[in-house]
């Protein structure tokens, strides 16, 4: 049973505090959403968990094993996968090659200059399995830069899944996708393996409430509250946080 434990994580850039004493755990099978206004530090938290950023203080562990000192690739190998808010795909490569790159990493075959036939076939079978699950089979030979954005977002998830992770951090998987297409993405998210621990960052509250069994609300780098969707929806501070924000944005539009 995977358990990701975030304990008292702080991060500041000089005087700017972007994460302040963040503590929570994510267990196998969890469906947790991380919400908060722009600049609350959601993506920063993902970067801290994956090792793209080093925390100023605090610890991160997976199944009791400390990750804090491990490099980013070592954490990915330990089973933590992420997607990116703005797609980071291998744009000049085909969809199939994008997946092969990830699968070679997962199988520790990326240093091979000679690939035995049996292993190559196993990789192809895996490519097929993932693309079929995401209904992207038709695009296997297409270069990613020619792919519609909605399908690029699906591939973004596919690359993370190819690592066969135990913890999956989804950073706004439906960002920039029109409503009609975001449905397909949320279907994929809903069909993720049951024993996978999933943390979803999302702005669309409909999607959040459909997905999450637990919601963490982040404001100015600190955890404001944690609870069930119902409890969070009823929480006055959360309403204020979002209401105040929306009010501000509305004013900007008027001016």
């Amino acid at each position, binding site marked *: 049973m995977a358990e990701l434990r975030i304990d008292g994580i702080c991060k500041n850039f000089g005087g700017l505090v972007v994460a302040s004493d963040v503590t929570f755990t994510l267990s196998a099978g969890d469906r947790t959403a991380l919400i908060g206004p722009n600049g609350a530090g959601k993506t920063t938290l993902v970067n801290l968990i994956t090792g793209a950023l080093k925390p100023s203080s605090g610890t991160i562990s997976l199944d009791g094993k400390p990750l804090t000192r491990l490099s980013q*690739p070592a954490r*990915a190998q330990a089973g933590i996968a992420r997607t990116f808010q703005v797609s980071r795909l291998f*744009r*000049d*490569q085909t969809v199939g090659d994008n997946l092969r790159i990830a699968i*070679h*990493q997962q199988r520790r075959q990326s240093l091979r200059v000679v690939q035995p036939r049996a292993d190559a076939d196993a990789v192809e079978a895996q490519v*097929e399995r993932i693309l079929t699950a995401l209904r992207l089979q038709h695009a296997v*030979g297409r270069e990613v830069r020619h792919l519609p954005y909605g399908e690029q977002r699906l591939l973004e998830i596919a690359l993370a899944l190819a690592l066969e992770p135990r913890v999956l951090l989804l950073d706004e998987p439906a960002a920039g996708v029109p409503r009609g297409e975001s449905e397909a993405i949320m279907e994929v998210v809903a069909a993720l393996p049951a024993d996978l621990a999933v943390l979803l960052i999302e702005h669309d509250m409909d999607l959040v409430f459909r997905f999450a069994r637990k919601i963490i609300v982040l404001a100015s780098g600190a955890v404001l509250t944690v609870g069930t969707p119902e409890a969070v929806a009823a929480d006055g501070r959360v309403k204020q946080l979002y209401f105040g924000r929306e009010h501000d944005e509305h004013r900007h539009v008027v001016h």
Partner: protein
Amino acid sequence: MAEVTLRRAAEATRAGRRTVPFLPEIILAVVGVAAFFLFPDDLAFLAQIVITALFVLSLSLVLGQAGIPTIGHAAYMGTGAYVAGLFAIHFNQDPLLGLLIGGLAGAAMAAITGALLLRTQHLTFVMLTIAVAQILYEIANQASGITGGDNGLSGVAVNPIFGVFQFDLYSHTAYFYSLVVLVISYFLIRQVVESPFGLTSRGIHSDRERMLALGCNVYRHLLIVFTIGGLFAGFAGALSAQVAQVVGLSSLSFSTSGDALVMLIVGGSARLPGALIGTVVFMVIQHVASNVNPYHWLFIIGGLLIIAVLVLPGGLISLVDKPAAWLRQRRAARG
């Protein structure tokens, strides 16, 4: 149903790509042999083209595939040339052993310097590659007791290959020796490019951050690419030492690195044949134009580079690739 179609499509591409094994190497060998018969009086020059092509090919792996932006790649060719030259003068005149030693020297130098260089990125990295090549150049220049300094390392003589093929005045042996080494090297580098290792290299070239997030040890991977690049650059250097029987400081010079870069970009860096095409075009123009006008031939090279970058960003190889892609599409549309 969909799965079956997909598998069939995958098999078709695989089969289509590999109907003739060793096809690129066969074409290369045929062109090489044809050149031997077409230009029997220019074999020394042809051998020079072949050796330079091997050097540019090694750069194609490092820069074109893995995206390592070096402009000091001559460091590893020069190392291979000097080590192979000194080895022949002081230890053993066997050409194949010398070739191997030269290649290993290039690889070792690339591994040692790369271990330091590859900790940096972008402009810092570029500058450091120049610095490393310049330092080696100065060492070779100052240590004239060993390297001959400015006069070059002369008197490099090697035995006949397999004890049979004597290096002759007409460069027959030199040319075929270089060509065989190029063809074998091309095959080996192509294996690397088409393997999971090569695909991973292109992934790093495309998005380093994403590779880190996928669990790739980017530094280690690039160091291995750099070392393999040094190996083949070292082979090229050893060949030039054995064929020319002299090693000049220019084998370590900045302009050698720069010319190779121009050849690679003119020919196309994304695919291996581009390195060969670029080398041939560059060197033939250099040869012909510098005979016509020894002062202004660089204008032609400069113009060619501008055209390659502006009109054919993929290099001359895209003149072949684009019609091929169009034909494939048409055939696919017809079913």
